[in-house]
């Protein structure tokens, strides 16, 4: 019976988060005023009287907290710890503000925490991932060594995703939201319930999640490779006198050979044919040397660009293949529902 009450209390605690600023019951307000006035005995009496009344969860939490603080202030250790235990069962995530209460009270609260078995700070980071390629991390804190069972309920699913013996401290369980057949679970609201067992004691804490489906974004094709730029395939070389040099060389060789071959017994004449063609050749050599050179291909750059384009094409082929796969995939987005811790 007590165990069921604990579980129910914990579930209520999670479903109705503490908003203690809104307490309405006059006795709780009076107990708070007495505590603020350092009338710890008065605060204890009023808080106890309030707890006999029909209180909201928020008022009940505040009443137990005032009891714990006041007993702590009066060095009533046992009563203080007992009040804190009740407080922890009601709201496991509520802790004394170390800025406002004395270290003694903080240590009494820690002592109470070590005596009870609860699951605290159950939370899930909102996340998005492709179904089958990621997990939903569920984190929680257990106050004592126990068996922790994590279940996911919703969307026609009631699945134990983890059951393990754990020591006191922070834990993390990963939920892969796919069915046995590998399909993503249906979109909707899911409840994660972490329950801890120790002998006959157990405590459960729920957490509501929203899970939605969406299409997976496809990857944009690349137009360039980051860090790599194409090199100019043609470059204009500097002006060169090489054409004139070659013209001079060839003309000199031909003219020298022709003159050397001349037969001295024959009429040599004015050599006007040789002179005319030699002159034209040299003029052409000068003209081609003075002309701005045409751009010439740069083989190394052409090869580099070719490799770059091949790599780009290969990567785009990979992207196209990935996009084809992505069009069949589902993006899952998990968000904590409002009101969850």
């Amino acid at each position, binding site marked *: 019976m007590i165990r069921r009450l604990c579980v129910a209390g914990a579930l209520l605690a999670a479903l109705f988060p503490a908003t203690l600023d809104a307490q309405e019951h006059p006795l709780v307000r009076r107990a708070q005023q007495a505590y603020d006035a350092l009338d710890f005995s008065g605060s204890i009496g009023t808080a106890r009287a309030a707890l006999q009344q029909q209180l909201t969860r928020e008022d009940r939490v505040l009443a137990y907290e005032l009891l714990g603080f006041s007993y702590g202030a009066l060095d009533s250790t046992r009563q203080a710890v007992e009040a804190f235990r009740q407080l922890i069962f009601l709201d496991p995530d509520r802790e004394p503000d170390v800025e406002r209460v004395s270290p003694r009270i903080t240590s009494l609260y820690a002592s109470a925490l070590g005596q009870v078995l609860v699951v605290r700070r159950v939370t899930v980071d909102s996340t998005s991932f492709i179904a089958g390629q990621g997990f939903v991390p569920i984190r929680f804190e257990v106050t004592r060594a126990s068996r922790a069972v994590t279940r996911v309920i919703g969307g026609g699913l009631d699945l134990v995703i983890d059951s393990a013996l754990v020591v006191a401290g922070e834990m993390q369980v990963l939920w892969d939201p796919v069915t046995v057949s590998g399909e993503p679970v249906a979109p909707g609201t899911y409840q994660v319930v972490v329950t801890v067992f120790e002998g006959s004691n157990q405590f459960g804490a729920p957490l509501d999640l929203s899970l939605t489906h969406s299409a997976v974004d496809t990857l944009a094709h690349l137009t360039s490779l980051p860090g790599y730029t194409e090199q100019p395939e043609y470059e204009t070389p500097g002006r060169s006198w090489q054409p004139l040099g*070659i013209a001079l060389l060839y003309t000199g*060789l031909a003219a020298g050979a*022709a003159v050397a071959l001349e*037969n001295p017994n*024959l009429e040599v004449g004015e050599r006007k*044919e040789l002179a*005319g063609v030699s002159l034209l*050749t040299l003029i052409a050599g000068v003209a081609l040397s003075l002309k701005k*050179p045409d751009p010439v291909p740069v083989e190394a750059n052409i090869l580099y660009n070719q490799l770059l384009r091949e790599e780009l094409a290969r990567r785009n082929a990979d992207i196209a293949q990935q996009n084809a796969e992505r069009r069949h995939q589902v993006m899952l987005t998990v968000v904590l529902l409002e009101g969850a811790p």
Partner: protein
Amino acid sequence: MRRVLTVALALGLLGAARADAQKIRLGLSGLGMSYAETNAGRSWDGGGGAGSVVLRVGRFGLDAYGITAKLEADSANVSDFDMLQGDVRASFFIVPVIAVEIGFGRRATDPDFAAQDFGLWRFGILSEMPLTSLGLIWIRGAYLAPKFEGGGDVGLSAEVGLGIAVGTSNGRFRARADYEFQRIDREVEGQDVPLQTSLAKLGVEVGF
């Protein structure tokens, strides 16, 4: 025959490396020419025209020329004549700018016996070098092996050539100038009767 086919096949395989550069060029030229033979008293000058076909296929080349010229004697003792000459040279480029050449030529005069008619074989080297993308220069030299209709022995016989062509970068049109000098030493019955030709051509070419 089988040897010829084998050699042709081998040369064809070697030529495949330049197979992308085949080009045929047709040209027309005007020419000026000096010719002398036998002794200092027998010389002619004149001009005429020439047509040419130049083919480059891979490593192979073929140059063919037809020349006609009207030559006027420099002295009154000899008569004028017309000359017809044809030359064919086949080349094989052993490196991009050097080729070996083999060819033949034939020269005829009109009227007959106004000057020496002959045919010849030539074996030589051609060097062709591009001058930027717009021009090409070449030089050639060859040993000549002439055969005269009137007989006689042949001594030193050689020719030298120089040429340049300048035109559009795509090679479609070119202006072309080239020079050829030819010396043939001939001896007939112990008498030297040499021949010497100097020829300049200036013309245009169209490439396809």
